[in-house]
Every structure is written in C-alpha cells, then in structure tokens.
C-alpha cells in the first residue's frame, strides 16, 4: 500500500508561496487517513459479526436437527448395555406358592386377509373353510370379493393350522404375531385366575388384558415393564388345589348337588391355599357370561366368593363365642331348650327335641336353635351386630379378586330382637363361604382377626383382637366335641383332630315368599389340627341329597361333612401335617367319698 505523506512537499511549497498555512494541508490529510482507517475497521468488524452469526446459526441448526431426529425416531434399547432383555412377554406369569406355573404366555399367530392382494379369492375361501370348520365358505367368498380391504379371520391359530394356510399359498392371507395367554392346568383354579382376552389389536401386536379374577385385579401389575418380568406369586398350592377340586367334584356327584364350593385357608395369615367352586370352566376358552337368568347357574360364578347364602347353624359358634367372651355364660351353664320357642308370631324349633335344658357345650354339639336363641337374647342386638361386624361378616372380603367387592353379605336393615335370635343360628344374614372361613379362623386361632388373601404373606402380623385367647381355646374344645360326638361325626379324620360345625340352611325362593322345603345349602366349617389350628376348611354343597337311606337326607352331617373329611384326609398330608396322636385330657383327681 502506498502511504500518502501527511505533508506532501509540492503542496506545502505551493501553499507557502501563496501565503497559506501548510498545517491545514496536514490536518486535511490526517482526516482522510483516519476516515480510511475507520472504514476498514468497520468492514472487518462487520465481517467478524457475520462469521459469528453464521457459526451460531450452524450450531443452533445442528442442535435443532438433532432434536428433530431424536423426536422422530423410534426408541431403541442401547445395544451395548449388558444383560440383554429379560422380559420375554408383555404379560408376566402367574405362579403358585411352590413356583409352579398357573398362567404363562405362548407365541402364536393371528390370521387376516387383504382381498385386493388375493390371487384366487373364491378358491381360497373354500380352502380356508376346510381348514377352519367354524368359518363359513359362502360368507368368506362374499367378504373376499366385496369392497373390504382388510378382514380379521382368526385371532389365534396353531402352528399346524398356520402350515395349512401357508400351503394355500395365497399372498392375500397374512399372519400377525400374537401372544396368547395359556393356562396349562386347564380348569384348575379357573375361578381364581379368571381369564384373559385381547384388548386393542393391531396387525403386528395385540394387547392381552385380564377379564376376571386375579388376571383383572393385577392387570396393571402384570403388564408393568418396571417389574422386569417378575412373576406374580399366589398363595395357592397347585397340588392341593387340584386335590381339593378332585375330591369336591366326587363329593358333589355323590351327594347329587347342583354346585359346590370349598375354601382351604391358613388359620393365621389368611393365605388361601386352595379355593374351589364347581361347576367350573376352562380359562383357556372362557365361556361368555349369561345375559339373563340367575348368574349363579353359570360356571363362571365363583360360589366360594360370590355365593352369598344363609349359612345356617355354622353361625351358632359366633353367638356362643361372644357370650363366653363377655362372661355371660360358661361352657357348663345350663340353657333352656324347651321347644318350640314362641316369640310373637314366630316359632323357633329344633331338628330334634333335646329336652328341657342343655349345657352351652351341648347346645353347640347338638346344634340347638332354641338354646342359641336364648343365649343371643342375653347378648342383645347391638353387641351382636358389633361382634359380627368385627368378624368381617358385614363387609365384602378384601380378597384380591375383582368379583369380591361385589359380593357383599346380606343383612337385615332393621335389627329387632327376633332378628337377634334368628341370626344367632344363621338365618337372616347371608355370607359367602370365604367370609365364614375368615370368621372361623378368627374364632379358633386365638382370637385375632384374619383377612383372606390370595398373595403369599409369609410373615403376616396378627390382626386386631376380636375374642380372648381363653375363649378361643374353649371354642376349639367345643368344635372338637361336635366332631367327636355331635352333628359332624363323619368328619373325624384319625390323627388330624378335626373340629368343626355343620350348618344346613333352607334355600330362599328366588322371588321372595319363604323357603324351599327340599332345597338346602349344607355347609361344614372345620379347622385342623384342633389343639393348634393351622388350617380352616369350609365346604359348602348346593342342594345336596344323600339317597343311600330309606328317605333322602339333606343335613350337612350327611352331605358336606363326609366330603370335608375326605378333603382333609387327602389334603392334610400334602400340607405337610403329620398325623398326631391326640393329646388325652389330663387325668383329674375326682373327690370320692367312701
């Protein structure tokens, strides 16, 4: 660059000769130079700003682009992560207390058609109908040649059927992967497991949702990926459940009963080891619910939980137990049993005439309605209601079945003294076998409340105290005597000290207006071994008739009790209970006078 001198000699000399001030020229030149410097500096600064702007633009554009890419791509697992995916299926397995599978998943396929891609729609329709007998060839032909673009044909097909469809070779017949819920044990524990079906369906996958039982109660838990595929463990024992169902089925057929239910429960923790309701169904092909008529006629009806019946004399132990706990009576107190007992326009009768008086123990052993009614009168309605409420007989059971909250016990709205008396022997309040099992557990386990549950609860804390330990011990003795020489003598299983109480209740007519004369619900509520009760068993038969004698016998002692005894005989060894020699009552010194 040629630098312009600030005082060019030629101009200075000519200015001097003209008598002007040469400094003006210098200042002029300085000004011009400064302007040039300023212009170049501004140009450089502008260039830098532009560069900076471009850099920021590129940086922000990169960030924005990356965000867009992240937002629009499908999430993938980090490939370098160790361990690999441990979740195999979208729904976790259900296992029993020993880890045996109750419900699992199988990969299968669904079949759908896209008619516009089909080569020979009419031929394929005929071949499909030959593979699947439930599809109609005419209907398929109409669908395939019509305007429809997409048709679901089958939701689940077996690998053999899939091969046969492959062999048709039509490109318009397509398969979608499916996960299928499988209950490998068939009908065993059907009412507890419930069943599952498909929810929202797409071509490449379908939701599996629970429709009843624990499948529905724990639907969210079973589908939660946060559990990492951990199975749901129930308190059931598959072997014992199967044994109980087997024996109960035999008993139901033998006693000509319409239905049957059994609950086998841990007396301390409330864990349900087995719970059966017959007739049952296969949860793999769950039948449709009844749309009209009595829901209890459907095999879907869980009698053990939903079957709310008056349970008859099994309730007597609650009145007697409360009276003992309140100190109103002792086991030896004599109670009036002269019958019939007249109260207003009501008459209370006994099955037999037991004479003018019985001890409280004998009232239970012989199952006297009149005696129990007299004891209930001593207790009074308010205290009785409070006690039954604390036993859980007025609320739905907390068991983890979706059907349970709907099965609320039936209780009279008003509670006059006659209700106090009838409820004491089991008429007027209706509850399910599961309610009864929980209440009996409370009565014999030392007096703490038990909440029935289907989940493993190994270290359950004892519940709220309902009756005293002494009272519970007396009740155990009474229930043992009922089996030894009372109404449940068929219930004795050598070595297992069975104690229990029978109950035979007439069934109410469906549209009100009294009770059937020849239809009963026979119930046997038992506990074993009675010196230290571990398990509670409740067996309930619906409309049983025992016809081996000269006249039909319907009482629980002839129907439910033998079935219950056989269940205990078969199930107790499986529960790991060794038959014990019964402790003999200690010899007492009796004062004799000679």
């Amino acid at each position: 660059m040629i630098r312009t001198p600030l005082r060019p000699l030629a101009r200075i000399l000519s200015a001097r000769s003209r008598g002007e001030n040469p400094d003006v020229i210098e200042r002029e030149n300085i000004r011009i130079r400064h302007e040039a410097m300023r212009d170049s500096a501004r140009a450089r600064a502008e260039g830098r700003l532009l560069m900076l702007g471009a850099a920021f633009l590129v940086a922000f554009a990169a960030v924005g682009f990356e965000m867009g890419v992240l937002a629009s791509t499908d999430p993938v697992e980090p490939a370098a992560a160790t361990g690999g995916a441990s979740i195999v299926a979208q729904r976790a397995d259900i296992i029993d207390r020993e880890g045996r599978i109750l419900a699992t998943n199988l990969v299968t396929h669904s079949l759908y058609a896209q008619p516009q891609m089909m080569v020979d729609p009419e031929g394929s329709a005929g071949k499909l109908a030959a593979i699947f007998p439930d599809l109609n060839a005419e209907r398929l032909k109409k669908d395939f040649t019509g305007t429809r673009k997409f048709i679901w044909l089958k939701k689940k097909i077996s690998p053999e059927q899939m091969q046969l469809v492959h062999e048709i070779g039509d490109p318009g017949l397509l398969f979608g992967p499916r996960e299928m819920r499988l209950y490998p044990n068939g009908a065993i524990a059907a009412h507890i497991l419930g069943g599952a079906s498909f929810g929202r369906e797409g071509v490449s996958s379908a939701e599996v949702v629970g429709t009843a039982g624990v499948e529905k109660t724990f639907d969210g838990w079973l589908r939660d990926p946060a559990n990492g595929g951990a199975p749901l463990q129930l308190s059931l024992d598959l072997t014992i459940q199967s044994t109980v169902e087997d024996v109960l089925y035999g008993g139901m057929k033998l006693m000509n009963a319409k239905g049957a239910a059994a609950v086998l429960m841990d007396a301390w923790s409330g864990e349900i080891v087995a719970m059966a309701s017959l007739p049952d169904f296969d949860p793999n092909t769950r039948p449709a619910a009844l749309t009209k008529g009595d829901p209890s006629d459907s095999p879907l009806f869980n009698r053990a939980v939903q079957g709310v019946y008056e349970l008859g004399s099994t309730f007597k132990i609650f009145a007697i137990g409360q009276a003992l706990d309140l100190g109103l009576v002792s086991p030896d107190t004599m109670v009036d049993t002269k019958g019939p007992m007249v109260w207003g326009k009501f008459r209370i009768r006994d099955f037999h005439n037991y004479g003018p008086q019985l001890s409280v123990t004998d009232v239970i052993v012989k199952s006297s309605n009149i005696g129990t009614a007299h004891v209930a009168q001593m207790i009074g309605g308010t205290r009785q209601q409070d006690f039954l409420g604390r036993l859980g007989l007025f609320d739905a059971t907390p068991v983890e079945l979706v059907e349970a909250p709907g099965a609320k016990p039936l209780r009279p709205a008003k509670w006059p003294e006659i209700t106090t008396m009838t409820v004491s022997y089991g008429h007027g309040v209706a509850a399910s076998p599961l309610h009864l099992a929980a209440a009996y557990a409370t009565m014999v386990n030392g007096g703490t409340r038990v909440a029935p549950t289907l989940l493993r609860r190994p270290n359950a804390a004892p519940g709220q105290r309902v009756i005293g330990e002494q009272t519970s011990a007396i009740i155990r003795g009474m229930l043992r005597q009922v089996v030894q020489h009372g109404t449940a003598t068929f219930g004795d299983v050598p070595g297992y000290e069975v104690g229990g109480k029978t109950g035979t209740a007439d069934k109410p007519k469906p549209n009100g207006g009294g009770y059937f004369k020849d239809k009963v619900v026979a119930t046997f509520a038992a506990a074993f071994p009675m010196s230290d009760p571990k398990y509670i068993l409740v067996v309930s038969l619906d409309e049983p008739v025992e016809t081996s004698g000269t006249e039909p016998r319907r009482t629980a002692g002839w129907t439910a009790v033998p079935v219950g005894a056989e269940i205990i005989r078969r199930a107790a060894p499986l529960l790991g209970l060794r038959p014990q020699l019964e402790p003999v009552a200690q010899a007492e010194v009796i004062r004799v006078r000679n």
Partner: protein
Amino acid sequence: MRSLILVLSAFAVVGLGFWAYRENYRTQGELAEVRRLQAEIGEMREALSVLNAEWAYLNRPDRLRELADINFERLGLLPFGPRQFGTVASVSYPAVALPPITEPVDTIALNGAPSGTNP
C-alpha cells in the same frame, strides 16, 4: 526445527486418524456381535418360556393322575395319605460290615449271676 515439528505432527494426525478409523470399525463389529448375541438370548429366553409352558402342561395334575391310573399295575401309585408318614427309627439301616477276626480270643458271656451262688 519448526519443519520437523510440522512433519511429526502431520504423521501423528495421520496415525491418529488411522487408529480412530480402525477403532470405529471394530466398535461397529462388536456392536453387531452384541446385537446378534442379544437376539440369540432373546430367542433362547422365548424357547425357554415355551419349554416351561410345555413342562407345566405335561405335568398338569389331571394328566399325572390319569397316567398314575393307567400305569397302576406297574407302579401301584395311590394318593398320598396319612398312613404314609413314617419315623426315622423305622428305617432299616444296612448291617455294619465287621472286620475279619484275625486273633480269636475265647470269651464267656455270663448272663446273670454265676452258677453256684443260686439260693
């Protein structure tokens, strides 16, 4: 000196580039291997779940009961009952094998009082 540093750093850049290129391809290879292994693990887990389901299906109590009934003559299996509990004392142990007698010693076992002192 200056040109030496320049040449050396040029070599270093080339070397690092070569190293990064190789590492990049090796990582991609390993990732592909991991993906393949994970797919294999997934398939095996799925196969295992199918086998578990089959095991459960073949061991369902109804089938076992039927099989026990069919093979009753050979196996003689009955439902487990209370009589089948035993005690450890009733188990017969095998007889203890005694060592051979090498130096016989005469012994007389005296049961009760010696003779001659009877009253």
